[in-house]
């Protein structure tokens, strides 16, 4: 199967068409909207697989198809499609996971009144996401990126009648847009320097050697290279979308959306877009590496942010009680891993983890969705429990996902991809701190996932909802099973023994064993995973929770730490107190300025005019008018008399005229002196 770059646009166009159909379908047309969406995703998947075939045939090439969008001054804004293994692998992943989530949604959203709208938004989202993947222009990426943000806004706020959902949607949109601001500026700068935003354009693209040489030579203030500055601005966009510290706050709140949305947005696609973007512009990020005397390299920042995020997310996840929030922070943490991998120089490892993570995190979210659906929207894991016996398929698949996430050795995909990252971190010459952060996060990950599984599936039901839960219909469980299979098998294409993915992704054959530096690190990480699992089991699995109100064992052991973690380390409050307050203050000040100062100046001028008028009036009334009134009074008397003379009789007037004439004439004649 083959698909040329020029027909690549079909991949996002199909879901877009489905979205249009969904938008035009009335509420009743549930099967039309969902059918269109699913068929479109199947089509997109087929095309993606075809594209993958093409890409694998030329793994080192960047197949492009560029065109002009509009002219801007003397030059033109050009967009294009790009087909390389990165695009193709991502497209296959997104359309495949997306398809499964769509199918799952058929069951999950069955009772929702706005079923057609949901599928419309889902399709729009998928279209935008696929658009990001196939774009060969930073501008086109940005366009689709914004549409991804929009679709996520619509989906997170899907149940907007819940105030928390509406607030979360807005928060997600605004927070990611803060990051996008950086991306926009980076884009503007890049365009200013290079006059194009195409990634690959037969030697003129921004990611091609001539451009990179130019960018890494120019230095700006602060001793950093131009490419560093632009790269970091672009990275801001990735921070926003991928929920990296310090803009990670939107991601957990976004769990207010329906669970399939969480699976789609916060596992497989949207959050992956940031990682994908950095992988896409990797040559640019890498361009400053050869410079010795710069104050900072772009990738160092990426690695730092990634390490902090990985550690932070994992730590906060430990303190959460909402099943989806645990998963959300786990996503934050895993995205931190990917950024870390990008930062330490191995984008291939990052993408590998991205792909495996997409499968097992989608699996976990859908599993959680399955639990929530069965337990009548009970999400607090203290009130669940004992579901393992009632929901066997869900439990089994969830356990697979949990082990993949925790990195249980050898069988599960998460292990291999995480190992790749840890090895890359180990090999990073700059610092070993990311490695240490990653290793601590390994322990924490295993711990909180054990806690999650033990609380939800083991023990006895602790609420009515949990005790009446039962397994869901196949439309929901079959996707779980498929994802579980993927979560296991996908790891096998990137093991040190057979680095097929790594070889094909980068277009450079990676020799077997080359991503394996000896057993030391792997053994260490296996030990750490076991440590995390063991402690988790000791605290939660061995002595099972009796009722929903029993304190958390960890809270008993370390109350201060647990409370801080449960409060998400206070980021939200901190932002609300600083940026939120500041913004509100500025807005109020500006509003006040407008109302009182600018408006006040006008009113002041008006008031001064009025005051002058009042003063004049006083002057007139008391001073001038005194005499004037008297004179007027007389005049009025004269006027009255005169008015009486106006009899209205024409004869009288005529007579007066005659008399007056005679008098005048006599005066003239007799006087002769006048």
């Amino acid at each position, binding site marked *: 199967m083959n698909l040329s770059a020029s027909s690549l646009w079909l991949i996002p166009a199909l879901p877009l068409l489905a979205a249009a159909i969904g938008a035009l379908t009335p509420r009743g047309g549930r099967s039309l909207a969902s059918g269109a969406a699913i068929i479109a995703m199947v089509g997109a998947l087929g095309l993606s697989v075809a594209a993958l075939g093409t890409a694998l045939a030329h793994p080192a090439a960047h197949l492009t198809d560029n065109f002009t969008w509009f002219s801007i001054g003397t030059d033109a804004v050009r967009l294009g499609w790009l087909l390389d293994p990165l695009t193709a692998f991502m497209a296959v992943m997104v359309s495949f996971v997306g398809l499964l989530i769509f199918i799952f949604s058929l069951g999950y959203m069955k009772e929702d009144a706005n079923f057609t709208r949901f599928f419309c938004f889902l399709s729009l989202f998928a279209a935008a996401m696929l658009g990001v993947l196939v774009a060969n222009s930073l501008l086109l990426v940005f366009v689709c990126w914004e549409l991804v943000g929009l679709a996520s806004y619509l989906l997170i706020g899907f149940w907007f009648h819940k105030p928390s959902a509406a607030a979360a949607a807005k928060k997600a949109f605004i927070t990611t847009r803060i990051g996008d601001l950086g991306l926009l500026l980076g884009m503007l700068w890049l365009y200013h320097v290079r006059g194009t935003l195409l990634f690959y354009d037969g030697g003129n693209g921004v990611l091609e050697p001539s451009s990179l040489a130019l960018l890494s030579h120019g230095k700006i203030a602060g001793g950093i290279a131009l490419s560093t500055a632009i790269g970091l601005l672009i990275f801001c966009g990735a921070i926003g979308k991928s929920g990296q510290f310090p803009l990670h706050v939107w991601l957990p709140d976004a769990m207010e959306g329906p669970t399939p949305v969480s699976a789609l947005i916060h596992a497989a696609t949207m959050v992956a877009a940031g990682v994908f973007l950095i992988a896409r512009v990797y040559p640019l990020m890498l361009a400053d590496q050869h410079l010795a005397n710069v104050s900072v390299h772009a990738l160092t920042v990426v690695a730092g942010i990634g390490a902090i995020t990985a550690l932070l997310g994992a730590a906060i996840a430990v303190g959460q009680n909402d099943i989806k929030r645990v998963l959300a922070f786990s996503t934050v943490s895993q995205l931190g891993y990917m950024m870390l991998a990008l930062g330490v120089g191995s984008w291939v490892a990052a993408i590998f983890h991205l792909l495996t993570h997409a499968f097992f995190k989608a699996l976990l979210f859908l599993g959680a969705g399955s639990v929530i659906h069965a337990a009548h929207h009970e999400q607090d894991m203290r009130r669940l429990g004992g579901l393992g016996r009632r929901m066997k398929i869900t439990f089994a698949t969830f356990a697979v996902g949990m082990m993949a996430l925790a990195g249980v050795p050898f069988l599960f995909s998460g292990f291999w991809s995480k190992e790749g990252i840890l090895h890359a971190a180990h090999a990073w010459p700059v610092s070993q701190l990311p490695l240490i952060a990653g290793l601590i996060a390994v322990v924490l990950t295993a711990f909180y996932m054990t806690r999650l599984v033990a609380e939800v599936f083991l023990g006895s039901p602790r609420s009515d909802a949990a005790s009446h839960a039962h397994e869901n219909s196949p439309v929901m469980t079959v996707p779980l099973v498929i994802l579980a299979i993927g979560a296991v098998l996908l790891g096998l294409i990137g093991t040190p023994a057979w680095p097929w993915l790594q070889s094909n992704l980068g277009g450079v054959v990676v020799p077997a064993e080359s991503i394996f530096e000896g057993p030391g690190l792997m053994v260490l990480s296996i030990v750490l995973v076991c440590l995390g699992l063991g402690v988790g089991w000791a605290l939660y699995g061995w002595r099972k929770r009796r009722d929903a109100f029993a304190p958390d064992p960890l809270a008993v052991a370390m109350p201060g730490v647990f409370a801080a973690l449960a409060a998400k380390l206070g980021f939200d409050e901190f932002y609300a107190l600083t940026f939120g307050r500041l913004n509100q203050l500025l807005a109020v000040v500006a509003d006040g300025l407008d109302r009182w100062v600018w408006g006040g100046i006008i009113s002041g001028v008006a008031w001064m005019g009025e005051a002058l008028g009042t003063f004049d009036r006083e002057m007139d009334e008391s001073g001038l008018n005194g005499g004037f009134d008297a004179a007027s009074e007389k005049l009025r008397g004269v006027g009255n008399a005169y008015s009486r003379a106006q009899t209205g009789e024409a004869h009288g007037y005529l*007579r007066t005229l*005659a*008399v007056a*004439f*005679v008098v005048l*004439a006599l005066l*003239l*004649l007799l006087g002769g002196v006048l």
Partner: protein
Amino acid sequence: MNLTFALIAFLILASAVLAATRRDLIHSALLLVGNWLGVAFFYLWAGAEFVAFAQALVYVGAISMVVLFAVLLTRRMRTELPLLVATRDRVVSAVLGGAAVFGVLAVAVLRTPLDTNPAKPAGSVSMLSLGQQLMGPQAAAVLIVGVLLTVSLLGAVVLASSDADGKEGAP
């Protein structure tokens, strides 16, 4: 004194006095026609033939018709009401006023040394020169008079018809 002039003057004054004193409006109007004819004769006598004809056409031909129209359209008032005391007073005062004005004017005319040019041949102005005057230096005045005529006619129409309309569709 020129006999012709005397005759003309007599015609003018007599018809005017009669017209002013008749009680029947129709009579007054007809006598006035005589008066206007007399004026036309005066113009002829003075050598202004064109003006004379204009006078005859406009006054004798047109305005007299207007007067008759007015009289006929307001039939109920064809005859003057009987003289009332107030009316008599008015008549007396009017005659007194008129006499005063005439006295003043006459004195003024007679006392003013007006030099004349009897040597001037019996004045006559040719139609050609009159036309050239009117179309040349006086063209603007001619135009303005034309506009005035139009406007006054329009105004007359509006005046005469406004009440009838007003009753139907009051604003």
